[in-house]
């Protein structure tokens, strides 16, 4: 099992080591994009509001019932 894990890890390491120029450029864009999406957008600007505002399911349900009822 450990041998298999080592083989897979080496496969990826070698793959990234021998990336052509276009591959490196593309990976740079991916990493920048993921950083912007997950570190800036998700953490700072786009929280899940129901999870943020309420501590548990019961509170969320009560809030939603208030929103949907007449």
């Amino acid at each position, binding site marked *: 099992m450990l041998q298999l894990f080592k083989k897979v890890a080496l496969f990826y390491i070698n*793959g990234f080591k021998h990336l052509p120029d276009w591959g490196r450029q593309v990976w740079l864009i991916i990493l920048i994009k*993921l950083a912007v999406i997950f570190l800036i957008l998700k953490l700072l600007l786009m929280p*899940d509001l129901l999870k943020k505002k309420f501590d548990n399911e019961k509170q969320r*349900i009560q809030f939603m*019932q*208030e929103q949907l*009822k007449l």
Partner: protein
Amino acid sequence: MMQHIDWAVVDWSRWQFALTALYHWLFVPLTLGLSWIIAFMESNYVRTGDPEWKKLTQFWMKLFGINFAIGVATGIILEFEFGTNWSSYSWFVGDIFGAPLAIEGIMAFFLESTFVAIMFFGWNRVSKKFHLVSTWLVAIGSNLSALWILVANGWMQMPSGTVFNPETARSEMINFWDVLFSPVAVNKFLHTISSGFVLAALFVIGVSAWFLLKKREQRLALRSITIAAVFGLLASLSVVFTGDGSAKQIAKVQPMKLAAMEGLYKGTEGANLKAIAILNSKSKRENGDECIFQLELPKMLSWLAFGKFNEFVPGINDLTNGNPKQRILPISEKIRRGKEARQLLTDFKNAQDAGDTEQVEQIKARFREQNFKDHYFRYFGYGFYDEVDYYIPNVPVTFYSFHIMVTLGFYFILFFALFLFFSIRGVMPKRRFWLRLALFTLPLAYLAQETGWITAEVGRQPWTIQDLLPTVASVSKIDAGSVQLTFWLFAATFTALAIAEVGIMLKAIKKGSETKGGGTK
């Protein structure tokens, strides 16, 4: 009616979702279609051992990789928006979307990304057959991703396999197979992936045409055009067939969307299809004077909608004001029934708060009654807003998007047939006018994609869930300024990413297949 509605939040949230969805959709179709083309090319390489097929495969695989990488994670922003801008909607659908999106994430995405690594890193490290299997699994994985997303979208257009639970204030899944095999979801999936195949074929032909015009990579270009022309022709015929299926579903479950797609205000039996038309002003349309100019196909709208030439197709006026002869309720009646359904939820909440367990159980039973579901709860969403005009989507946007998409769809059939004919006759390199046309056709493929989604999603307004939840009840109670901020942030980021991608893609295309001399067939 709802208490004070902040229309700025509603509108900016809609614009933001539209921007991010349309941007995401620039990359997905090419992934969906090019993955199959590459898999076919590599299969030929493994079968024949011909190194030309390997060269072909590796070239298109490079372009696939660039597109795949730039498109990665653009979809996740849409999920973030659910939680931030559309929290009420997110709660309402949570039990239904949870399963499809989880399956999409775990199975389809990991399938794709695991085997994408083998596709790119494994050329000289794994056996030919294992590499080929990986390429096919990437194609399957990417199309399976589309399936689950479209199952979720299909449910928005026609809720099925679910029941509303007043205790949790959300729809809950009672039959997974009804959700998965909803006819709307099935049609939508087949239509969407077929359209992706069309775009990929046009991409391959467009790039190959450029090579031929530059007198480069001729062997690669000619083989690619032949494969793409066959693939594209079959796919574009599938688009027409599945598009017809979708239209028939829309006629049944979203008649207002169909009426908007055709700019039909006055319903009629044996309704004509507007092949080409310019819509009149809103007030003239509402009085039945729908178009300044039109070229119609007699009775074809009735046939498109119902498969029969003389069926009645309701117009916007029928769906708004009602039509007793056709048993169409006016919106005012739907609003009344929707409010009754909301009142029952209010009674339930009051009984719950008062600890009246007998009343709670009675009301829960009423929510489960078929009569209540069919005649009251199905109009639940109408109970949130009293203005009738709110329930009519933007007709010009829906109409023109639909007609652009369909016109281009038929053009693509002729295009592929012609290019296949030229390929078979062996005259492709000499047809320079048509090669230049291929370059101009490529952006039209993207236009068809985007107008297709605009038709589907603008046409369903104001519903986030057809008839159950409108936009005004779906948005979060947040400051419009924060939505504006993220909108402009997305617009700037996406523009920068798009410029980067086009730049890297063009550089990769110009470099060609990285061997000296293209040769001729």
